[in-house]
């Protein structure tokens, strides 16, 4: 089954066609247009500009993606229906609805977080030369037959699986009893983990989004230099809180270093250590409760090296029966292949949406109807 994935939930317009067979999913074609540069110019996100940009590049990208095969290039359409920026989501959803109507293709509405999780089920390409797209259009690994695929270690995930989804907008622990069956165990009560990274970056003057910059500076710092709090690390539920940690960093800067030059590397390292501590500890605790066979990591912050390393180590040490391997780096950012992959598993279960009534949902909670 070939799935066309459409992702426009934030500031990347992404299309992909993946091929699903049994438990295996591999990427046939991928196309991404990033708007990061445009929004940098404005110094923030301008929802209307984002939406207009999605709408501008969409026809061009579709043409490029489908080529001469047109409607024959795929069997099912999968689109991100939420959560995200409502104006941006609408472009993708309406594109998908139009195609579903015009070509009579079945349509599946994918939750963006479910997509991030599904990134773990995509087979890895071994000789990849993928770079994070930041220029106008890039065609990563487009349709080259010579690519050799290596089955990803957990591409055939064993269920139940526990997924930690961490990104700029999300921090969630999700239990998957099967493909397409999600149960939200816990989530952040205030800021997302990635948001805390971004805001600490801003506090330290590392620009926006500052998350990756914080992680980079942290490599050279002492993670035990400053005892930042680990909010809610001992609470019995599986919820998170990162607002207080961010505030602690702000306070540290105000009170300890009203003037002078604080050691940015140490602050970054200590902050990252605190954030990773909480994320790993909560995941392990949830795992002890639900006894998953697989532990998955997903979302933009899944690219954080420290988090990948620590989660791997702790799972191996404390939960020897569970399988844990972080997702391929290139699928941690927003992309359409993951949406198509999640769509494949949904289509297999015939969880289709009606093109007449499908509406984007800005605050769609994973697992909610």
């Amino acid at each position: 089954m070939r799935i066309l994935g459409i992702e426009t939930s934030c500031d990347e317009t992404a299309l992909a066609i993946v091929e699903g067979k049994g438990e295996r999913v591999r990427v046939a074609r991928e196309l991404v247009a990033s708007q990061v540069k445009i929004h940098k110019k404005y110094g923030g996100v301008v929802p209307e500009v984002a939406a207009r940009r999605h709408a501008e590049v969409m026809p061009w990208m579709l043409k490029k993606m489908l080529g001469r095969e047109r409607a024959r290039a795929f069997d099912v359409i999968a689109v991100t229906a939420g959560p995200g920026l409502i104006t941006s989501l609408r472009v993708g959803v309406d594109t998908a609805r139009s195609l579903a109507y015009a070509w009579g293709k079945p349509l599946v509405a994918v939750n963006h977080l479910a997509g991030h999780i599904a990134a773990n089920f995509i087979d890895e390409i071994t000789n990849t030369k993928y770079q994070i797209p930041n220029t106008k259009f890039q065609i990563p690994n487009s349709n080259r037959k010579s690519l050799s695929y290596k089955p990803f270690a957990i591409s055939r995930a064993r269920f139940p699986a526990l997924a930690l989804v961490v990104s700029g907008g999300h921090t969630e622990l999700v239990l998957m009893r099967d493909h397409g069956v999600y149960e939200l165990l816990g989530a952040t009560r205030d800021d997302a983990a990635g948001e805390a990274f971004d805001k600490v970056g801003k506090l330290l003057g590392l620009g926006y989004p500052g998350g990756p910059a914080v992680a980079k500076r942290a490599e050279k710092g002492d993670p035990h230099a400053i005892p930042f709090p680990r909010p809610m690390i001992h609470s019995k539920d599986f919820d998170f809180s990162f607002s207080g940690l961010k505030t602690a960093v702000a306070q540290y800067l105000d009170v300890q270093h009203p003037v002078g030059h604080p050691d940015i590397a140490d602050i970054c390292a200590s902050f990252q250590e605190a954030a990773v501590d909480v994320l790993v500890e909560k995941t392990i605790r949830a795992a002890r409760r639900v006894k998953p066979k697989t532990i998955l990591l997903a979302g933009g912050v899944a690219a954080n090296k420290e988090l990948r390393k620590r989660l791997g180590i702790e799972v191996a040490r404390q939960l020897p029966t569970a399988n844990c391997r972080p997702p391929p780096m290139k699928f941690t950012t927003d992309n359409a292949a993951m949406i198509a992959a999640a769509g494949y598993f949904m289509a297999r279960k015939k969880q289709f949406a009606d093109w007449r009534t499908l509406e984007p949902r800005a605050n769609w909670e994973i697992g909610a109807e």
Partner: protein
Amino acid sequence: MKRKKAKKRGIEIGSPREIQSREVRIASLKQLRIFVKNFAKTLRGGEVIALSGPLGAGKTTFAQLLGKALGVGERITSPTFTLMHIHRTRKPLPSSPLAKGRGERLSILVHIDAYRLANARALQNIGALDYLGRPDTVAVVEWAEKVRRVLPRGTRWINFKIKSDGKSRELRIS
């Protein structure tokens, strides 16, 4: 402590008299909770509450507590990423002081965050302005100074300041 002093003067934290005053010193989360609870009682629907102040000053916490006071059942998280969250408020019990004068009008809490927005017009683009001033809606806008231009007249401003001890906050209301 300010609170003790305030009591001596017969002003309770968050009392109508104090809310009308221009500056409130909040020393703890508990005090903020009391302040917000009393502040919520003054809301009738249609208000726009603009919050400003640095990162970590307590803007989202204020919005969370306000939501709680207004009977929002679901979780209120930072809207930095999706820019706007819309919450349904529960109808106040007839016995609750909130019910007085509010009737059944107030039913929506809109939580907006302008942190990532490039300019004031962007707020219009996400449809936020449709909610500002609606009689059934209370709107809380974080990082409101970035979108000052499009906020309606009569917007209530609360400026958060972190005091030098790092713990307490000064709320300037105008």
